[in-house]
């Protein structure tokens, strides 16, 4: 599906990243091949109730925030306090922790973009932000109080809806910046982050908006870890920094992580005319679904169609493929084979940022999109940490009589997967993310060449 329309530039970035003070710290740690994954004391406190105890998590203190708990409802965060007074009290009152991260990231991204207050508050400015989970930290204690303890619905106060609803981050950001354009959330499981940026891109490309603050958020939540832990899809048995090991033969699951990534998108000519620094230009966004009726298992056919839709007859060939690369036994081979199927086995590299910070769920695609922009800026390729040994045997899927993808084992593509960051000319990065339900998302972003 070829779509003609306006060009879309990336002009600002911001976020919340595990163990990182800010975006610069995040960038420095990533390109220094560091892992942001730690043993999570909260998971450890549940001992044998939970299998996986590592995460890329963010504490209140690390964000200079403090939780004030209710005196009526046990463990209920009545309100959060911003110890640095960055967010007005009236906005904090309606926000869960992830919404505060989103508001902080918004301020950072808009500052980088250089948008004026008049531009931000115009009808041409939209907010498109989503997260994968609901407001667990708000909803669990509030409704436990009602269901299990016989409390009244009013006991937690009146902010369970605004702080627990699906589009709470978008709503809170919009109330903070007072834009007058579109405010929406796109939710597509672990493709949410990129899906929101993709929707925002289309809004600008097709002329509905001139600028959009967009991305994904996944707030620290032990409930999220529990959910995936129950499926036995989380990594266990490795040191924290070695737990996320996409494509490695010994991988046994992903690392459940948290964070936020927001970007400012703007119609290209407008950005150029006001002298904005163009961090990247989005060439295309394409998304589809597997169509095989399987909720969980990835589809080679779906990803093959994804690539076809992404590249079309543009002639674009990415220098780096920023993969979803979760470190699950099922996901990694299919993704690697779908990349090789379309791009061959040379002339590009594969970067797997989840190897450094784990899987940020609804924030993953957005934070990883930021890593793609950083690769364009630094002219460096981020690594695939811990991909030490790749399977020398054929994958089971390759032994199927219906298989029509690459016929070599995964270790034939060892050279595509750097274990350390390195310098090279990076003009275009392809970003891939997938989610439960068979949803697939892909974006191409390039350096500004004009």
């Amino acid at each position: 599906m070829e779509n003609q329309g306006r060009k879309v530039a990336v002009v600002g970035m911001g976020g919340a990243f595990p163990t990182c003070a800010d975006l610069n710290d995040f960038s420095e740690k990533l390109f220094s091949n560091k892992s942001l994954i730690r043993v999570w004391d909260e998971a450890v406190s549940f001992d044998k109730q939970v299998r996986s105890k590592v995460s890329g998590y963010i504490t209140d203190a690390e964000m200079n925030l403090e939780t004030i708990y209710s005196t009526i409802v046990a463990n209920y965060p009545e309100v959060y306090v911003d110890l640095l007074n960055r967010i007005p009290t009236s906005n904090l009152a309606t926000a869960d922790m992830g919404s505060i991260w989103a508001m902080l990231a918004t301020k950072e991204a808009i500052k980088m973009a250089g948008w004026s207050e008049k531009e931000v508050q115009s009808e041409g400015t939209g907010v498109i932000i989503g997260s994968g989970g609901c407001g667990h930290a708000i909803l669990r204690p509030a409704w436990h109080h009602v269901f299990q303890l016989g409390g009244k619905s009013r006991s937690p106060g009146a902010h369970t809806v605004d702080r627990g609803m699906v589009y709470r981050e978008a709503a809170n950001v919009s109330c903070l910046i007072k834009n007058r354009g579109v405010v929406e959330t796109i939710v597509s499981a672990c493709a949410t982050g990129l899906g929101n940026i993709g929707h925002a891109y289309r809004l600008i490309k097709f002329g509905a908006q001139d600028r959009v603050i967009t991305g994904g958020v996944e707030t620290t939540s032990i409930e999220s870890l529990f959910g995936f832990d129950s499926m036995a899809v989380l990594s266990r048995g490795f040191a924290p920094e070695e737990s996320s090991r996409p494509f490695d033969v010994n991988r046994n699951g992903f690392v459940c992580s948290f964070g936020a990534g927001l970007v400012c998108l703007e119609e290209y000519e407008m950005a150029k005319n006001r002298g904005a620094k163009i961090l990247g230009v989005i060439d295309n966004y394409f998304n589809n679904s597997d169509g095989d009726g399987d909720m969980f298992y990835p589809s080679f056919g779906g990803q093959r169609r994804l690539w076809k839709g992404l590249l079309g007859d543009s002639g674009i060939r990415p220098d780096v493929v920023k993969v979803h690369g979760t470190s699950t036994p099922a996901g990694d081979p299919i993704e690697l084979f779908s990349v090789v199927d379309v791009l061959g086995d040379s002339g590009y590299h594969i970067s797997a940022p989840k190897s450094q910070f784990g899987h940020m769920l609804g924030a993953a695609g957005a934070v990883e999109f930021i890593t793609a922009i950083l690769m364009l800026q630094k002219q460096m390729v981020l690594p695939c940490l811990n991909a030490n040994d790749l399977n020398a045997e054929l994958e089971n899927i390759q032994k199927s009589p219906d298989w029509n993808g690459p016929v070599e084992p995964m270790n034939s593509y060892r050279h595509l997967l750097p274990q350390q960051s390195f310098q090279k000319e990076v003009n275009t990065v392809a970003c891939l993310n997938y989610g439960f339900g068979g949803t697939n998302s892909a974006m191409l972003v390039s350096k500004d060449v004009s």
Partner: protein
Amino acid sequence: MERQEIIDGLVEILRTVRTIDPQKLNNVTEETDFIADLNTPSTELINIAAKAEQKFDVEFDDDDIDDMGSKVKDIVDLVIKVKARA
């Protein structure tokens, strides 16, 4: 329970509501209006009512809450009424 005791307790509750300017809580009287004088967001009133139930060890009926006025004296009257009812 004396009326001033209830007012003092209410001010303590109001000081936990971060959207209310603490400066405005220095001279609270029975005539102080939560909305007009203290700029309390209407969404916080239910929170204040719930905290008042806890602090004064009373349980408001749903009708009590629906009929409650927005002045300090309205909550004071209600607390006294509910205590008497008990």
